[in-house]
């Protein structure tokens, strides 16, 4: 009889365990989830904060670049529109990504989204220097144009001085040097754009990444050479203006002397 009672008790306990098992398991799962959720929430917050910071920084840099692109003067509207479209596309991608990251509720999705920030960086890392190089090259070409106009005026003044009997050898030499420097600056600026404008994101391809990097560095070197040329041309302007002023002063002194005689 006791055996029967024990068996009944065992069966009852077993049934009870079986019945309770799902609930217990669920409770256990809930406990794990809750426990993980609490732990991961802190990690998520840190990740979201970092992701937001990185994305916000990039969006600000791209918007600033877009403003600069709109102010470019020596390129066609189509060229500007092309760069601007790339920038806008990247800004939209990052904005969407930021919103998704902010709304993520589980770590797995968040991890994937955070990793895509790194992936999108390859686009950002190309679009930003491409745009900056184009803007700097545009400014250099603009400066070439402005100094060419100024050079024509200086040429006219030198010619007038020559016709007045002044010796203008040094001024003419400076003007010739200025023209050569401006010509080279124009060539270098155009080369910088040619080297960088057609590059495409590497998409994680290391060979492509290396060739893009080399092309951007070459473009940077071209821009620096152009900038050096322009600085030299600017010095030539100072030399010529200073020389013309001296010629004017000596001419005035000469005429004053003649009058006083």
């Amino acid at each position, binding site marked *: 009889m006791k055996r029967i009672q024990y068996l009944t008790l065992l069966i009852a306990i077993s049934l009870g365990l079986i019945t309770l098992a799902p609930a217990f398991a669920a409770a256990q799962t809930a406990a794990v989830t809750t426990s993980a959720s609490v732990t991961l929430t802190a990690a998520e917050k840190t*990740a979201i904060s970092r992701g937001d910071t990185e994305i916000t920084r990039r969006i600000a840099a791209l918007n600033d670049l877009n403003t600069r692109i709109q102010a470019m003067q020596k390129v066609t509207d189509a060229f500007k529109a092309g760069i601007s479209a790339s920038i806008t596309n990247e800004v939209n991608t990052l904005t969407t990504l930021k919103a998704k990251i902010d709304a993520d509720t589980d770590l797995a999705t968040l991890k994937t989204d955070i990793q895509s920030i790194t992936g999108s960086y390859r686009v*950002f890392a190309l679009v930003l220097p491409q745009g900056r190089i184009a803007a700097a090259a545009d400014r250099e070409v603009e*400066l070439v144009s402005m100094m060419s106009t*100024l050079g024509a005026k200086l040429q006219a003044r030198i010619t007038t001085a020559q016709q007045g009997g002044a010796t203008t050898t040094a001024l003419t030499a400076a003007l010739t040097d200025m023209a050569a420097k401006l010509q080279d600056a124009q060539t270098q600026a155009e080369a910088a754009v040619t080297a960088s404008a057609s590059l495409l994101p590497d998409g994680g391809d290391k060979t492509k990444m290396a060739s893009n990097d080399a092309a951007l560095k070459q473009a940077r070197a071209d821009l*620096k050479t152009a900038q050096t040329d322009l600085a030299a041309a600017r010095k030539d302007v100072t030399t010529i203006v200073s020389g013309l002023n001296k010629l004017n002063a000596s001419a005035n002194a000469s005429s004053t002397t003649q009058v006083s005689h």
Partner: protein
Amino acid sequence: MAKWIIGIIIVVLLGAALWYSGALSSLGLGMSASQTPTSTAQMATTTQQAAAPQPENGMAATNDASDAAITQDTAAVDAQMQGLTSDSANVDSSLNDKQTAQSY
């Protein structure tokens, strides 16, 4: 009957030849493309008028070579040179950009 058909064909061919050569344009019957060069020329003229050389970025008038104009031009060039220094720094910054670590 055949003579009539040949005659009509000849007339049609002659008309087409005249139309193609633009001989009918004086009568207002020429092909519309013959008007295109005129329109294009007008547009080019308009564009040229609109794009007449204008002083750029604070420069003095192109035909003014006075001392004051040269001083003004030099100042305008210097302003752009400063802008170039800024552009150049931005190029360096963009090439040296490093992304914030995203692992956690």
